């Protein structure tokens, strides 16, 4: 007979076995097989990724079988770091998101594939810039000042959490097309095997490899996109602006023009982009490979902004000695090219006097010549200021996986990884047209990042039939070193191009790790992990720390009383783990080091022959000899369930996490150290949450499938201790804003979420209008001072959710994803900074500045930066993407056409540009465009 998939494509390599015997075979290249069977035999067909099927042999001449792809197989392999388990045996909070669940669209940055797809994972892009990075938060981040991003591991190589130089987003080195799946490790029992870098969760990215015994496949994929800004900051029109300017007692008509320019429309463009992928793959008995060539070119909507990627990704797998030795090489070469548009143009366009034209009559740019503090014509900045950087990067990983011949079940795995990138950048800025004394500026920057890894482990799997227990033991060692070097030459005030001191940073981590997993009677699971990490960032006494994790599971559905019920899977699991953090940015925080000063910050020590003598300085840096690991302890309880033969599956996860000895940069006791702020171990934060996800196959047939996935996360973070003292009112200002220098709108204080705002409570008149400058006198001392500020609302959400539907009817497919956030607030800094009359009239020079339109509502005369009037609800639901595709199957070529729209609409009450800004401060935000994508995919 022949074995095919649902699309009638032959499946090679399908295992066929007469049940209860050792008689079996596999299908050939064309899906054909032959096997001898007798009446009453049960023939089992199995193939990875498909549901196994059994047939009673009743004497047929041939048996043609269609295997159905499995969507949520319980024995699906899931990576867990230095090994793997199956979905049904996983005891930690581990979620796998595979290709078919990915977000659709012209996606440049891989993390965007995952946005909204996994409970507890919040991915917020930094804005609309092409290839821009994102804030990735798993369970809200465990730290204050140290890194809050998860550890990203690509094919076994943990990336440097600081990123690499000169790129918008270091993850862009991974072509989204090459990604097989993401595995998100959320709780500490799952992440503890990554010890010191695991407090914020771990994302394991597996790239695609060739398949064994697969025919030569050539695939070409194109995604062409068009993006546009659809919303602008509300500023005054030329006539509204003129009305306010004219009302001023010192009004000077000569400073205004006669135009009516919408400056924001002058700086944005329709951005086009194209992503080309050519992929070739083939698999033989012992060798397979996959090669991908990618070209990505994406303009930004800010004129001149451009991201380009040219990359090659190769993977090769060689199996030797009867498949006992598997060698895997993956290597990626990436040219990441950026032209960074001058983002200062965004703020300049918002503030530029709308009565002036972009150009003078003679074609030159309109400028406020000689007005040093005036805004520079934003069109001029975009046209003339130039910053280009190329990052040339190689990420390679070589893996040896060897089944030791002398002991059945013992395996040795060795992984050698390298992530090396070189940056070369050139920045040019023309002399500021507003300052005749200024000079053209050049900045040439170069450098490299090197991340080297060597790790190995032994794994032993054994079925102890006498104890009815499967045992899985792993132990290993890892060493990873990070080296960063940067050089720069730039124009100095004196006009010359001078080299700056080379900056070198090297740090290293050494680790030992082990795991023991037990599956008793296929019902009771127990997993123990431990990692011992040493970091070069701490002194010898604090260098090493141990991070244990333990988790247990009960596969209730395997108990007799649930057999043959609608419940196809039910598992209760619980875990605890301790993880660490050392990602504080600085390398020698425990060591007092001395930094030389530059010659432009030297001091005069007298004269020699009438020539002033300047002495360069030497500065001792602050340090904390006792700097040590930040430690996070996390508990997790969860229930996984599956109903109706896994057509409806879901998980409820609850966690409680406490981070102590926080690596926080906080004020140090005056006089005790060599700065006002010091990175030290102090305080603790607590977070807890519940995550719920539900996946349903609403329809499942040969012609029509409808899958729906929903996830929601409820979370709460708060600071439980912030200083060595006991003052409950002690706080540290956070969240810098614009409008005056050194102003902050948020605070850290015990008992509060770290993104809480700190504001005056606005007083309103009976008509509901804010009374300017009138705030609640909280302490009743008849004056409004600092002491009357109140903690009020927060930027982080109480809940966020994702909702995805995927439908296909025959060759037509349709999918869409909604993402939402509840309970988050935003500080509208554009309105607070510019929404007042003084902004227009009291520029520090001979010119006027445009104001935010909110001044028309409130008639504020001055800035009221700290009024809670500007703290707005920013709940939202966003239609992230909608995609429609059609597959045209052919004899030799399959063609798939798709049309995708992303960022289609947002439902929100927030007045500003976008309710989704991760720090909760909306100021000169790079707008996220609406994008339409045409996709073409040819498979030969």
């Amino acid at each position, binding site marked *: 007979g022949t074995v095919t998939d649902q699309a009638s494509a032959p499946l090679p390599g399908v295992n066929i076995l007469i049940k209860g015997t050792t008689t079996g075979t596999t299908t050939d290249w064309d899906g054909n097989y032959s096997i001898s069977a007798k009446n009453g035999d049960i023939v089992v067909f199995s193939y990875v990724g498909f549901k196994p099927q059994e047939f009673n042999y009743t004497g047929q001449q041939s048996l043609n079988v269609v295997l159905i792809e499995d969507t949520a197989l319980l024995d699906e392999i899931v990576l867990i770091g230095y090994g793997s388990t199956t979905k049904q045996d996983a005891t930690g909070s581990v979620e796998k998101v595979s290709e078919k669940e990915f977000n659709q669209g012209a996606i440049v940055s891989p993390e965007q594939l995952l946005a909204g797809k996994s409970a507890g994972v919040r991915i917020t892009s930094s804005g609309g810039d092409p290839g821009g990075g994102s804030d990735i938060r798993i369970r809200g981040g465990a730290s204050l000042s140290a890194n809050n991003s998860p550890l990203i591991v690509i094919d076994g190589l943990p990336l440097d959490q600081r990123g690499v130089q000169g790129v918008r987003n270091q993850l862009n080195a991974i072509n989204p097309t090459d990604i097989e799946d993401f595995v998100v490790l959320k709780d500490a029992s799952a992440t503890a095997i990554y010890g010191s870098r695991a407090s914020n969760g771990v994302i394991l990215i597996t790239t695609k490899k060739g398949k064994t015994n697969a025919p030569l496949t050539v695939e070409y994929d194109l995604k062409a996109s068009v993006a546009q800004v659809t919303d602008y900051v509300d500023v005054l029109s030329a006539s509204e602006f003129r009305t306010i300017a004219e009302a001023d007692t010192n009004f000077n008509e000569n400073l205004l023009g006669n135009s009516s320019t919408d400056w924001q429309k002058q700086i944005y463009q329709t951005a086009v982009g194209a992503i080309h992928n050519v992929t070739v793959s083939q698999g033989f008995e012992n060798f397979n490979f996959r090669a991908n060539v990618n070209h990505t070119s994406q303009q930004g909507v800010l004129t001149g902004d451009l991201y380009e990627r040219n990359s090659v990704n190769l993977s090769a797998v060689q199996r030797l000695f009867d498949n006992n030795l598997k060698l895997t090489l993956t290597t990626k070469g990436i040219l990441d090219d950026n032209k960074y548009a001058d983002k200062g143009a965004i703020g300049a366009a918002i503030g530029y006097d709308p009565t002036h034209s972009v150009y003078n009559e003679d074609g030159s740019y309109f400028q406020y010549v000689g007005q040093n503090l005036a805004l520079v014509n934003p069109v001029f900045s975009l046209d003339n200021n130039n910053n280009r950087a190329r990052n040339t990067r190689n990420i390679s990983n070589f893996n040896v996986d060897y089944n030791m011949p002398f002991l059945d079940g013992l395996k040795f795995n060795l992984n050698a990884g390298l992530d090396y990138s070189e940056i070369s950048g050139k920045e040019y800025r023309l002399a500021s047209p507003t300052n005749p*004394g200024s000079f053209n500026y050049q900045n040439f920057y170069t450098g490299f990042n090197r991340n080297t890894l060597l790790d190995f482990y032994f794994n032993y799997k054994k079925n102890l039939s006498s104890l009815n227990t499967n045992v899985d033991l792993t132990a290993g060692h890892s060493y990873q070193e990070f080296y960063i070097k940067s050089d720069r030459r730039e124009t100095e005030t004196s006009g010359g191009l001078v080299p700056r001191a080379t900056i070198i940073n090297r740090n290293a981590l050494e680790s030992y790790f082990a795991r023991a997993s037990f599956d008793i009677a296929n019902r009771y699971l127990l997993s123990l992990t431990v990692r011992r990490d*040493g970091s070069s960032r701490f002194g010898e006494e604090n260098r090493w720390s141990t991070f244990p994790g333990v988790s247990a599971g009960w596969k209730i559905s395997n108990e007799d009383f649930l057999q043959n019920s609608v419940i196809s899977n039910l598992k209760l699991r619980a875990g605890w783990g301790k993880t660490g953090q050392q990602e504080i940015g600085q390398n020698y925080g425990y060591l007092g080091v001395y930094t030389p000063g530059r010659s432009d910050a030297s001091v005069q020590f007298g004269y020699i022959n009438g020539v002033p003598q300047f002495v360069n300085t030497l500065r001792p840096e602050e340090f904390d000899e006792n700097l040590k690991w930040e430690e996070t302890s996390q508990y997790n309880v969860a229930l996984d369930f599956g109903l109706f033969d896994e057509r409806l599956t879901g998980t409820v996860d609850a966690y409680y996490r406490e981070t102590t000895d926080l690596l926080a940069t906080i004020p140090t006791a005056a006089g005790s150290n060599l700065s006002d702020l010091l990175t030290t171990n102090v305080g603790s934060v607590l977070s807890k949450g519940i995550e719920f996800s539900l996946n349903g196959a609403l329809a499942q047939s040969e012609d029509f499938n409808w899958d729906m996935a929903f996830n929601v996360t409820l979370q709460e973070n708060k600071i439980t201790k912030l200083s060595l003292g006991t003052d409950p009112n002690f706080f540290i200002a956070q969240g810098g804003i614009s409008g005056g220098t050194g102003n902050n709108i948020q605070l850290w204080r015990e008992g509060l979420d770290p993104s809480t705002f700190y504001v005056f409570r606005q007083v309103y008149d009976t008509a509901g209008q804010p009374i300017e400058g009138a705030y609640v006198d909280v302490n009743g001392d008849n004056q409004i001072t600092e002491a009357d500020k109140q903690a009020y609302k927060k930027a982080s959400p109480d809940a966020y959710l994702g909702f995805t539907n995927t439908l296909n009817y025959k060759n037509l497919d349709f999918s869409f994803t909604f993402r939402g956030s509840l309970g988050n607030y935003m500080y509208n800094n554009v309105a607070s900074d510019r929404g007042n009359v003084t902004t227009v009239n009291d520029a520090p020079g001979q010119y006027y500045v445009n104001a935010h339109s909110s001044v028309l509502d409130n008639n504020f005369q001055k800035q009221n930066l700290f009024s809670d009037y500007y703290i707005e609800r920013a709940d939202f639901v966003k239609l992230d993407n909608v995609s429609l595709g059609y597959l045209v199957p052919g004899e030799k070529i399959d063609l798939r056409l798709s049309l995708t729209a992303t960022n289609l609409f947002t439902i929100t009450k927030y007045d500003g540009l976008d309710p989704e800004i991760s720090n909760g401060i909306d100021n000169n935000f790079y707008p996220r465009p609406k994008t339409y994508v045409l996709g073409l995919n040819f498979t030969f």
Partner: protein
Amino acid sequence: CESDLDLQPEDNRLTADAAFEEPGAYKAFLAKLYAGLSVSGQQGPAGDADLSGLDEGFSNYMRLYWSMQELTTDEAVIGWNDGTIKDLHAQTWTSGNEFIRTMYSRIFYQVALTNEFLRQTSDAKLDARSTEASLRGDIQKYRAEARFMRALTYWHALDLFGNVPFVTEDDPIGAFLPQQIQRQDLFDYIESELLAIEGEITGARLNDYGRADQAAVWMLLSKLYINAEVYTGTARYSDVVTYTSKIIESGFSIADNPYYHLFLADNDTNGTQSEVIFPITFDGLNTQSFGGMTFFIHAAVGGSMVPADYGINGGWAGLRTTSKLVDKFPGEANSADGRALFYTDGQTKEIANISNFTNGYAVEKFRNVDVNGVAGSDPTGDIPDTDFPMFRLADAYLMYAEAFVRGAGGSATNAVNYINILRERAYGNTSGNITQSSLNLDFILAERSRELFWEAHRRTDLIRFGQFSDQGLWPWKGNVAQGRTTEAFRDLMPLPATDLGINTNLKQNQGY
């Protein structure tokens, strides 16, 4: 691989032992103690900041000290919306004021730097490093200067905050909580330090320009003694006479230059330097900062003032003065007294709205042009060359006269003569000269303001004369246009709430 975890800096940063293998490192570290007052970090004008709790430009020592001493008084207002900066003039500051906090942080940063210098230059350290004898001789001079710089800073702490954390080179560096010292004890400590180094430091007018010498020590002692009654309750005016006399007799002189030459870009060479006892030096190319002189000059220019007249590329439109200062000059802005350096074109004398630059006369005391009107060395017009005369002979004269009036002895002839030397320069002739009958405390306070306004003395002076808080009125004091008195406890600044939250050994100043 475990040894691979012992990583040390591989770029230009060095561990202490590696740094001091280079003999020049001691002088470079000493330079940092001076730079602590003029620049804000290891890069000019910003980048690689010393302090990170506030915007770097604002965190400059001189800018903060000046703001404490001037913005709180009748001599200056600022129009900006930077945090709580307007609370300084309104005298409504709280322990949460970030400018007060950063002043305090700056002071203790400077103290910690000097302590570290003294630890790194101890005999034991120098022995261990087998330091050469000639270098050791230099280092002993450096140590005396470091102790002077620490005493200067502790004096600022004594004057502004009173009872503060106290650390010396005998304390470690780390996460410990310093003990609080009482104002009397801090006074005694500063006095003992100055007396101890008086004989060790380079003699008066013998050190490099920009560095402290014996005269600077005497000057600081004089400042300490003249305010001793405020600091300790015990007057020490006769000591003022003693030490100002030492200064006056050590060869400083009032140059034959117009008064305004003291505050120009070439004030280190135009002749007026003969009066300067201790300057904070600035330079357009080599000593760059957004605090210090950059702030004093840029922030004072706005309205219809032409920036080029002040040698800069643009004004920041922030600082002006109140009518109270203007009124101290007979004839106001058009006074025959050449010290009335006001800009009035388009400016109102009274202030209706502090935020608006054109409310209140502008002050054109500091400029980045030389005596010929040529701008300073920075071609961009950002950073001035003008040095800040922190201690100058005129102040010593005025202190001598004040001590005399307060009955501490000295000579009436000298007292009147010293005042008249200053007034002859101010008027260009003897028409402004006074006689002994005019010499009283009110005159001294007003004369100090006329001579020394915007030179960071005013708050201390007003407190010494009892005119700062519950006495004394000027526009917008107390946050009302006509001015109102405030609570007497405001003669001392509050300890910052952040430090009280951290350092449980501290007790807040009374009233806050």
